[in-house]
Structures are given as structure tokens and as C-alpha cells.
């Protein structure tokens, strides 16, 4: 399973985060929130300075790109935990 993180952060911001935190997986930048909008995950004006950002959401896709598991939290403090996502990934064909 391949994890991919997506946010409105610029590539440089994500690069710093990745380096500092030691993450090895892919980080993608969507500064204009185009993909975030396409996935209907826009949290308008919720950024620190009123920018449009993504609401937290996790999608597990199978190899053909079909959604197998979704987590749309109701509280942005509460995101999916790694165990949950690993458990969901085990069910992939």
C-alpha cells in the first residue's frame, strides 16, 4: 500500500515537513485546492489566515483506483489512526 499526503502547502513547505519529520512517502501540493475541490473536501476560509484548506480525509484505493475505505472525520482534531488504515489496507485484494 502506498501512502500519499495531499495539502495546500507549497512543495517547499512539504519538503521541510518531510525532512524534519523523516517521512519517506509522497507529499503532493495542491496550493489552489483544485483536487481538494474535485474531491469535495474544501474547508473554505479555515486556514490560519483565512485561506481555503482541505478538511482532513483519508481514502484507501485498490490497485484499480476504486475507493475501498473512507474516513471523513466529523472533528478535525480527530483523524484516522495508523492502525485503522493498516487494518483497512489488509482487506485489499
Amino acid at each position, binding site marked *: *500500500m*502506498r*501512502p*500519499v499526503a*495531499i*495539502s*495546500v*502547502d507549497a*512543495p517547499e*513547505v512539504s*519538503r521541510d*515537513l*518531510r525532512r524534519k519529520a523523516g517521512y519517506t512517502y*509522497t*507529499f*503532493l*501540493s*495542491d496550493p489552489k485546492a*483544485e483536487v481538494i475541490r*474535485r*474531491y*469535495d*473536501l*474544501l*474547508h*473554505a476560509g*479555515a*486556514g*490560519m*489566515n483565512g*485561506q481555503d*484548506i*482541505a*478538511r*482532513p*480525509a*483519508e*481514502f*484507501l*484505493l*485498490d*490497485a*484499480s*483506483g*476504486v*475507493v*475501498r*475505505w*473512507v474516513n*471523513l*472525520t*466529523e*472533528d*478535525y*482534531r*480527530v*483523524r484516522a489512526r495508523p492502525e485503522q488504515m493498516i487494518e483497512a*489496507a489488509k482487506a*485489499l*485484494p
Partner: protein
Amino acid sequence: MAITERRWNWHLWAGFLFCLAGFATLPLFARFPVTRDVPWVNFLFLVAGLALLVLGLRRAFGQPEQYRGKIAGSILGTLSLLVLGAFCFIVFYQTRQLPASGGAPRIGQTAPEFVLPDTDNHPVSLSALLSSPLSQTRTSPKGVLLVFYRGYW
């Protein structure tokens, strides 16, 4: 009657400090899932703080000849209630104000294709993420986990 020195009502100040600590440490404990999903450590601080304040206020108003703190206790008690209110507002209301996302891809649907730059500014497509081999196994992944996050803006 001789005026005796009334004792310092430390419960009031400790209670207020506990309430402040419970509120101020919310971002700290939000870093760990075990104290984030339900902020029980913060609640413990707040409950302890309010209990101390109640104790202090009972002393201040019940035994005013022995303990000080009628005025300070009223002010600190009010401030603590405001802190508690702000805490509850954030935890039970503010962080739950999320858009409905009714149009988000559902189970069984194909996730929409996209192309976005990675941290090296190389464009990466969803189809490439689904098909390109993983570096560890050199086989294509069983799946892709898309994690949308708020970011640091």
C-alpha cells in the same frame, strides 16, 4: 477583639492555574492520539481546577474570619468559568465545523484522476501512483492511501 491574620487561600490560585493549564495544553496533548481524540488529560486539569476553586470559595465565604479570597475568589472563579467555556467551545463546537463533503468519492466509486507536484516539483498523477512499483518490493502497490490534511499554510 484582636484582628488575626487571615490565611492565604491558595486553593483559589491553584484552581485557576489548573484551569489555565488545562486550556493551554490542548495543542500539546492534541499531538498524541491517545489524548487527542478525547482530551481527557485537559478535562482532568479543568475538573481538578474547578474542584480547588470550589474548595477555596467555600473557605473564603464560609470561614471569612480565617481565610481570605472573597474578591480574588470571585474574579478567579469567573475567569476559570470563561476558560472552561472557551475550552468546551473549541472541543465540542469549533473543531466540528466541517463542510458536508457530500460529493467526496464513496466506497465503490473510482477516485477522480489528478496530477499534482511532489516535493521536488515533479508532476505526479494518481494513475502513476497506482501503477508505479514501490521501491521496497519493486512491485506495484496493492493500493494507494490518499491522506488529505490541513497543512501548515
